[in-house]
């Protein structure tokens, strides 16, 4: 049973005039199994971010149908969408999007504040997630005091803290030097292999994409190819 099942997804951005409407996504059909690590690739403007946003309930498709974990997105209202986003999805963004004047611990605790998890468990859950990305030594630092790689590791901890089924990562290494990028990829790969998280990764770099098990290539809003990765890169090999 796939956790993500999308059939002929369309997204049209309406401009001021009818002629200026842009078709960002056309008839994208894909399915992702639980526990898979999938990379979505394509040049900028290919519609990969739009696809990720729709898959992550951050925006609604203009046409087609989408089922996440057996739920049909069209049938959910905003509150239910927020709840699913909170408890079953984790997000990692290219620009990290941490609260700059909050500490690492506070940032990681943020999803818990919007959840039904009892407050006395927050600290332990957050510390567990921070430990998993190796950031315990910075737990009380403010987000602005961290380096880019550290910020992204904290963002990953934040995405993990609710133990989501799927982690969506939008160009997580795009703002990082190769060394920190590789460290981030190692964590992501580890999440997938040792903790069973389903990963949907967006990137425009082939090398990064080849850390996944499968690559879906987009071009001009349409799926061009969907293939298994022949030779997977292992992030720890590079680091050694």
């Amino acid at each position, binding site marked *: 049973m796939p956790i993500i099942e999308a059939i002929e997804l369309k997204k049209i951005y309406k401009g001021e005039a009818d002629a200026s409407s842009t078709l960002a996504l056309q008839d994208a059909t894909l399915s992702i199994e639980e526990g898979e690590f999938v990379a979505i690739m394509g040049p900028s403007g290919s519609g990969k971010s739009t696809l990720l946003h729709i898959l992550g309930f951050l925006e609604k498709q203009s046409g087609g149908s989408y089922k996440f974990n057996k739920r049909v997105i069209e049938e959910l209202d*905003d509150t239910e969408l927020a709840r699913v*986003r*909170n408890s079953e999805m984790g*997000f990692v963004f290219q620009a990290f*999007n941490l*609260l700059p004047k909050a500490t690492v611990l506070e940032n990681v605790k943020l*999803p818990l*504040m*919007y959840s039904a998890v009892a407050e006395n468990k927050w600290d332990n859950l957050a510390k567990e997630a921070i430990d998993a990305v190796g950031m315990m030594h910075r737990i009380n630092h403010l987000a602005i005091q961290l380096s880019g790689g550290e910020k992204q590791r904290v963002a990953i901890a934040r995405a993990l803290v*609710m133990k989501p089924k799927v982690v969506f990562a939008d160009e997580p290494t795009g703002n990082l030097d190769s060394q920190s990028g590789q460290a981030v990829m190692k964590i992501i790969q580890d999440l997938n292999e040792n903790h069973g998280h389903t990963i949907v990764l967006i990137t425009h770099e082939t090398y990064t994409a080849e850390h996944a098990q499968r690559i879906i290539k987009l071009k001009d809003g349409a799926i061009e190819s969907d293939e298994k990765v022949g030779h997977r890169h292992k992030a720890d090999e590079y680091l050694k």
Partner: protein
Amino acid sequence: MTIKNSLKTALSGLRSHKSRSLLTILGIVIGITSIILIMSIGQGAQDLILGEIQGLGSKTIAVIPGREPHGPTDIAQTLTSSLKERDLALLLRKENAPTIKEIMPLVFTSGTAAYGEETYAATILGVSEKAPKIFNLNIENGSFFTEDDVKGKSDVVVIGYKVANELFGASDPLGEKIKLKGKNFRIVGVLPQKGQVSFFNFDEIALMPYSTAQQYILGIKYYNRFIVEADSDESVDRTVEDIKSTLRASHEITDPEKDDFFVQTSSDLASTFKSVTNVLTLLLTSIAAISLVVGGIGIMNIMLVAVTERTREIGLRKALGARGRDILQQFLLEAVILTAIGGLMGIFFGAILSFAAGIAITQFAGLNWHFTFPFFGAFIGLTISAAIGLIFGIYPARQASLKSPIEALRYE
């Protein structure tokens, strides 16, 4: 998200912009400060006046010549000569007004008291020998003049504490003569420090027999007031009616609308002054309240800026599972906390300023002013300022809650 955590989130949002938050609430602070100040001073003034009226005693009734004033322009009507000697004689007859215990005619003017080179602007009050009882005066130095002095129009005077001090310094004024309106008066008594009693400051006063004042000072045959004391609290209303009918008969008035005098009891006076000070306080408070509206608009403005500035944060929170309601709650709480802090600061500054004003009034006006902290005003001020946060915060908070997560995340 629970209220407790919303509160924490809102507080940290405010803390990250301390000086801006402070400037934002300045309007609210000023508004609440002025409301507290006005209410406290209004209350103080009311207490002062009521205290003086009550100082006269609840059984005291004043008969005032002229038509009862119904507005500020009517005031001239009180300066007439309708209260004559004959009226006094009629009121003294037991069959006309059996419940009158004491009655004292009163005349007053102001004049310069002179002793040698020293002068002092005093209030000249013509009273009868009953004045010490009615005004509750204790004479420690010398004695009050007698009924015989009143009958014989003696040129005697009892002077207030301040008059004695200014004219004689440390030396004893008893037996000395002072000049009032060109005539010499012998000092028979000196009042101890007394302050304000019923609209007269007895420290600045020169008391003499009313007959003397009528003849030598004012040159009139009528009285400015009758001060009447009823024999009990219960008989005040009856006494008032008796006075009215006696005077109407004496003045040949059939239509009460055409009365050339009016009768005022302590409670009448108290309620009149209460309503006057209340209206004044309300009026001034309303003016101060305008600044609260202005302050509220300032809050709305800054909150809108904050919402735009924090578009990314809003998007992130939504992506992580915040519902529109959570975001609304967060921004609304920020606005309410902001205005409530403004309200508290206003109450604090208002209390300090009105306390200082009380000290200044006591020091410079010599009034027996009591500082009262307006608890009601403080309560109202806090409620109003929180309400302003709600009213002016709801629009920006709603704008924030409606942002779609992705558009918010895209915002640079």
